[in-house]
């Protein structure tokens, strides 16, 4: 019986001009968005690959100089593109593309792509994620708002139920019919996406990112189930088709357009982040006077001197077997590192707390949950940005350790300026970054996934209940 209803719904929908038009438009937009994303990702990947080689070459061929000069020259860390960023670019356009890894400073990522765009960008970009999060739910709403209310208004609901049909079966059949029609939209796009990944230049990309693909697909499926359930429930409960449509459109607008913005501002109000000025200023003060403001640079210098003299059991710096300059520089780095860790971990904690506000609001707007999951599995959320930023910072610190260590060890062996060459530069390993796997993403996204699953379950239950208890006429 259920399959008969599903077939009827499916047939009716595919013969309906509204559905045909909506699906043609959404399919074209989805394909265009994915194509644009694909092309963009390949461009960026090529540029980054080239830049990565270039910056390494620059580092190796910087010529003879003091190791500390080399540390100041530094290298650049370029943010890599993640394999699924062509579906969801996430925060990528809104964080910088590169960070300069130099001595003494943990630099922020600079040059946000969005700054090189016009203000129209603020309306939202046409990406796969936009189509999936915003437009497909609208198609679901348009397809289902009349599922029960239309039959009731035409009197066919009474006829149907007089056949002895169980009401929940009717709901399930209708849901399956709509799902089948939607499948026409989503399955080709998904297949095309997986195929494109399989054919991509990176070998084994499909295998390596299987978990991410699975995670993203499941997230969107849960999201669609949630929308389908809400639509059917409203259609069953609303006094008329018109009321069902207006209610669902209102839900769609609040969910897709109002909630993300409301969440952004609410999060800022509840957990304010410092201004760039305040952040830099406090960090500068801590550099001089320590995190607690109870020390001076002179005290630190004296303490270091004493400690080094004691360690080498000498009474004058001149008698040290090592170069004190190198030791002092490394001590300065380590002092600065504790301060960077303190301030950046504070800032990132604030950002994480802001995300809890987004998640809390996801209880009212499922798009917030699916957006977080989609960006997470695409590798373009802020958590993975900081994962890369931390790896880059770790690499910067390693360069400092190697340069200062060499200076301390050999700086005293020559008369006059101490210079080094490629022999030392090549001891710095090339910067490699391994993106975390799907399990890692899942562990950071667990609450969003639970919320979205709860949405899907609650919506399905609501549809079930509403269908079972709806008025017949």
């Amino acid at each position, binding site marked *: 019986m259920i399959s008969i209803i599903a077939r009827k719904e499916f047939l009716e929908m595919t013969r309906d001009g509204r559905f045909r038009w909506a699906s043609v438009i959404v399919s074209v937009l989805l394909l265009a968005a994915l194509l644009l994303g694909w092309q963009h990702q390949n461009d960026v990947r090529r540029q980054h690959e080239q830049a990565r080689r270039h910056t390494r070459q620059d580092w190796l061929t910087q010529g003879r100089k003091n190791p500390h000069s080399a540390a100041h020259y530094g290298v650049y860390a370029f943010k890599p593109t993640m394999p699924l960023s062509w579906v969801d670019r996430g*925060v990528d356009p809104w964080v910088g593309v590169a960070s300069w890894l130099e001595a003494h400073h943990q630099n922020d990522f600079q040059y946000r792509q969005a700054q090189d765009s016009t203000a129209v960008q603020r*309306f939202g970009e*046409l990406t796969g994620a936009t189509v999936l999060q915003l437009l497909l739910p609208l198609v679901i709403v348009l397809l289902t708002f009349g599922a029960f209310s239309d039959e009731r208004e035409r009197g066919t609901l009474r006829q149907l139920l007089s056949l002895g049909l169980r009401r929940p079966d009717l709901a399930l059949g209708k849901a399956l019919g709509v799902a089948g029609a939607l499948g026409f939209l989503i399955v080709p796009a998904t297949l095309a996406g997986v195929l494109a990944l399989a054919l991509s230049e990176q070998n084994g990309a499909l295998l390596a990112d299987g978990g991410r693909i699975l995670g993203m697909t499941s997230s969107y499926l849960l999201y669609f189930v949630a929308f389908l359930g809400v639509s059917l429930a409203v259609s069953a409960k609303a006094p008329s088709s018109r009321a069902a449509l207006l209610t669902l459109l209102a839900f769609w607008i609040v969910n897709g357009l109002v909630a993300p913005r409301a969440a952004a501002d609410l999060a800022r109000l509840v957990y304010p982040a410092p201004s760039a000025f305040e952040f830099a200023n406090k960090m500068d003060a801590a550099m001089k006077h320590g995190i607690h403001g109870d020390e001076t640079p002179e005290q630190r210098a004296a303490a270091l001197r004493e400690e080094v003299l004691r360690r080498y059991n000498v009474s004058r710096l001149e008698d040290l077997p090592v170069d004190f300059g190198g030791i002092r520089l490394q001590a300065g780095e380590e002092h600065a590192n504790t301060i960077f860790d303190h301030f950046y971990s504070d800032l990132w904690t604030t950002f994480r707390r802001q995300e809890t506000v987004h998640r809390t609001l996801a209880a009212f707007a499922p798009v917030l949950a699916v957006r977080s999951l989609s960006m997470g599995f695409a590798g373009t959320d*802020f958590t993975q940005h900081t994962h890369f930023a931390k790896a880059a910072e770790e690499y910067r610190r390693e360069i400092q350790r190697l340069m200062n260590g060499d200076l301390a060890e050999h700086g005293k062996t020559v008369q006059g300026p101490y210079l080094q060459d490629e022999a030392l530069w090549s001891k710095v390993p090339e910067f490699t970054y391994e993106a975390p796997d799907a399990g890692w993403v899942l562990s950071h996204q667990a609450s969003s996934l639970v919320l979205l699953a709860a949405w899907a379950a609650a919506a399905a239950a609501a549809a079930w209940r509403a269908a079972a208890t709806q008025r017949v006429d």
Partner: protein
Amino acid sequence: MLAPILRNEWRLLRADRTLHLVAALLAILVAYGVYNGSAWVRFQSNALDSAAGEEAGRLAAMKTAIADVEAGRSNPPAFADPRSPSAAGRSLGTRWASMPPTPLAALAIGQSDLYPYYFRVSTQSRLSFAQNDEIEHPVHLLSGRFDLAFVVLFLYPLVILGLSYNMISAEKESGTLAVTLSQPIALRTLAFGKILTRFLLVALLGVALPAAGVLLSGADLSAEGAGMRLLLWIAVVVAYGAFWFAVAALVNAAGASSPANAIALAGLWLLFVVLTPAIVNGGAKLLHPVPSRVEMIQAMRDAGRQAAAQRSELLAAYLEDHPEFTVSRDGAMADFATIGIVTAQATERAMQPVLERFEKQLDAQQALVDRYRFLSPAILAQAALNDIAGTGVHRYRHFQQLADAFHERWRQYFIPRVMKREVLAPPDVDQFPAWTFEEESLAAVLSRTAASLAGLIVLSVLCFAGAAVALNRYRVAG
């Protein structure tokens, strides 16, 4: 004849419970939007105040430090000597270039959360200091902010459409249209009366929204140009509302049922507010791609290396151009600071064409958006509202130009002093070039806004005209 229609319509609208609900909801949204905008403006003003305070404190400390060195009370290393014009121009004596928010900034956050509105100008390259991005969770930048402009651009049209999607079709469906028209009254007069009543309501909203915004944000209307900006804001909101209203009239005049009207209008809203902007943005990027910043960074590194490799030639060439610097006070050859300045200038010269490519492509994108903004009233209104609130791209360009000129002045003050190895005294600190932000001329804002406003009006008139024509063929019954 019109007066009774207006009275009757007004009575009907007033009796509608949902209208009261919508009005209350709108009031809450407006309050939330304005609160967010004002909080953001306060945040910016606080940051600028702290920066100004830091600058004053630093310059005062610099004077004391110079006096201390002069009196022999301290003996800093050469690179940190407060008397050295090189240290002063590079870090110790630098000044903040800043762009204060306009009186109406709280109404539209616009691009102000994306572009730096203050940075410290030094003798170094602009690329080294102008990227002072404000700290913000990138997801917030991605979502956009909930300000009054958002309420106006996205939600205000929905209120208008909700008010008018069935203004004629409902009467036809309930059968009252035929009855009314059996009186000696033309359909066009009746429709005009309905349209006029609602338009007055919409216009009232159009005035009330910005006025409430100004009141709630505590904007200073006595500030220069504030009144003018408010009037422009109101004009844009009213014209934008008129457009949506005209679209509703046109769809009603086409004669379909109320649900069909609702779906058609929702579709048009989606088309104009969501899809067209996204497509115009995508098209601009596809047709005029901005070069990659990753490649720019590489070019910068290459130029820096090139300049460093040729520094002795560069120095010789520079001294040939500026013979007055060749013989310095102690006759010694140029030192570290001089070489730094010369190589930095060579790097910048090499980078000039690279940076110009960015500007050229971005200008081309903007030109494309400007051309196609007439396809979507939402783009027209967004550009105008940002512009009037002083948070649009034009005011940022203006700020950049002022900052560039100031940077030039700053260098012209310090570089000769570095070259001549002058020694600064405490009174010199007060003579450093000072930053002042000169507000963009209101005439420029007016002329840009006028184009958008004219676009909105033309689109509205076209839709109204279309509605008037279609009403001639309207089937009153059946």
